[in-house]
């Protein structure tokens, strides 16, 4: 079709255990262009993280891909062998996580963990790799990198550890960086620095980013296009400005209105926040039809009877809702 880097088509993920199967991700399609930063937004349990894991081939049982295609750089990821996937990970697709401490080896100096990437994927000698590791640490703006390569993860602050993770992830110049809530565990001022770093490094190298977050501010800061997930379905996808300034799906709109907005109290006084009623449905009890329908103030009878189809919106975007904002 196009020269998109990643094409996810009709992805379906299920939890299969003991003969019972629950659908967790249903019919999710999106694509990421070269050099594009795509954001996947949703609340806990909406399926955003496992969608990312399915791309990188790290889905664990009882979760399984039960439908759809994952096309990366023209190759079908689902058709790859374990070895091929392993080679792809780190070299072409890299991932950073919320808590770098769990992703780093606590018994190995960080420099060695970065150097390993060069040895593993680029065939560098250890001596060469060590020099490259110092350079990589410098690139992620760790001060005194030639000193810090010897440090162990527990000797570093959360922000520094995340920088190390980024250095490892970007070591081999991957085509795609998946960032799963990379700043959620960090302080706000550190978060700002880390996001700026990721943005700059990826822009300079032309790396595409799949950013996963529940934080709308982070997404607005980082991404060009955004998909909103709710209860396992992608309900709206838009260029970032359209999405946040003119949300079409009642869930997106509700989410934006439910958050206190900086500065609005001063301008308009303290207003009661607009709540989204009810709670996020659990995987075992997804409602029929549109999964947001029991909490939706615009719901009509058709919403609980049929799954809303995709409606295209002007300038590159879609929404799945019968009664969306026009």
């Amino acid at each position, binding site marked *: 079709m196009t020269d998109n880097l990643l094409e996810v088509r009709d992805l379906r993920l299920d*939890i299969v255990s003991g003969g019972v199967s*629950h659908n967790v991700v249903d019919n999710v399609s999106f694509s990421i262009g070269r050099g594009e930063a795509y954001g996947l937004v949703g609340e806990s349990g909406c399926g955003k993280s496992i969608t990312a894991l399915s791309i990188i081939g790290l889905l664990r049982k009882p979760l399984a891909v039960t439908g759809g295609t994952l096309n990366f750089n023209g190759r079908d990821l689902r058709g790859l062998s374990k070895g091929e996937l392993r080679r792809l990970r780190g070299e072409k697709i890299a991932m950073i996580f919320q808590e770098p401490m769990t992703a780093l080896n606590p018994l190995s100096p960080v420099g060695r963990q970065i150097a390993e990437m060069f040895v593993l994927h680029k065939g560098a000698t250890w001596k060469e790799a060590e020099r490259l590791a110092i350079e990589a640490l410098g690139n992620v703006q760790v001060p005194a990198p030639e000193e810090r390569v010897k440090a162990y993860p527990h000797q570093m602050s959360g922000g520094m550890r995340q920088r190390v993770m980024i250095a490892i992830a970007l070591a081999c110049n991957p085509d795609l960086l998946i960032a799963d809530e990379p700043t959620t565990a960090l302080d706000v001022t550190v978060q700002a620095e880390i996001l700026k770093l990721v943005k700059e490094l990826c822009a300079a190298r032309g790396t595409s980013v799949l950013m996963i977050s529940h934080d709308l501010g982070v997404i607005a800061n980082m991404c060009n296009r955004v998909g909103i997930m709710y209860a396992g379905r992608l309900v709206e996808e838009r260029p970032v400005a359209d999405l946040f300034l003119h949300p079409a799906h009642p869930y997106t709109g509700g989410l934006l209105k439910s958050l206190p907005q900086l500065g609005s109290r001063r301008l308009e006084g303290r207003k009661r926040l607009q709540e989204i009623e009810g709670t996020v449905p*659990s*995987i*075992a009890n997804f409602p029929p039809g549109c999964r947001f329908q029991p909490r939706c103030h615009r719901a009509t009878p058709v919403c609980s009877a049929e799954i809303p189809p995709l409606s295209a919106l002007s300038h590159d975007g879609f929404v799945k809702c019968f009664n969306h904002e026009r």
Partner: protein
Amino acid sequence: MRLRLNLLIGGVLCIVIISAALLAPWLAPTDPVLDADLMNAELPPDAQFWFGTDAQGRDVLSRILYGARISLAVGIGSQVINTLIGLALGISAGYFGGWWDDFVTGLTNLMLAIPSLIFALAIMAILGPGLVSLLIALGLTNWSWTCRIARSSALSLKKQGYVQAAKTLGYGDIRIMITQILPNMIGPILVIGTLGMGDAILAEAALSYLGLGIKPPFPSWGNMLTDARELIVIAPWAAIFPGLAIFVTVLGLNLFGDGLRDWLDPHMKARQL
């Protein structure tokens, strides 16, 4: 489901053994002590003596049934003592911390360093044989694992919001330990208690085997094994059946303990999707 099966088999075995012990006077075909008959000595299992007879011609089945009472009394009794000691020391150490924690931890490590059977042996040597001595000896020497688990659970539980909340609501320390901390560690403690029962039964057998446990002619599985020692070639049943009884009981308790752990874990229930 495997975990339910553990609990089921273990539970059935435990119930069978407990009922055997309780109903021994009605189930046993003969008196385990008085009905000695040298004419019937060392008979192999047959229709009259299902498990055969020993050197004095006593019915092995009857002696095993009565012996179950001793084994279970020792197992349950000593474990109750162990659990109470372990819980009191462990929870208070974890909850209060400080010098008390250092003291309890030191004591626990000391207990772990000395094999508990050696310790029990020493106590038995001072107190002399008998059921009460057995309960004391085994009840004072096997609480270190309970204590360790209780301490580490208390350490992590005391940081939980609900324990903090209980403090701000005015609960006293003892009340917090009993109502907030204890119920949330009861699973692992019960498991250790049940597994410890198996250990105590084995220890009783060992002590009685060494002549320090229950005084003959009263039957315990341990001293039955001692008596059968010389008969192992000519009348192996006198040793095999008490051995089997110990094996089945310990197996039942272990299965039950494992099953209990899975069943009691509240996260297992909450994890239903």
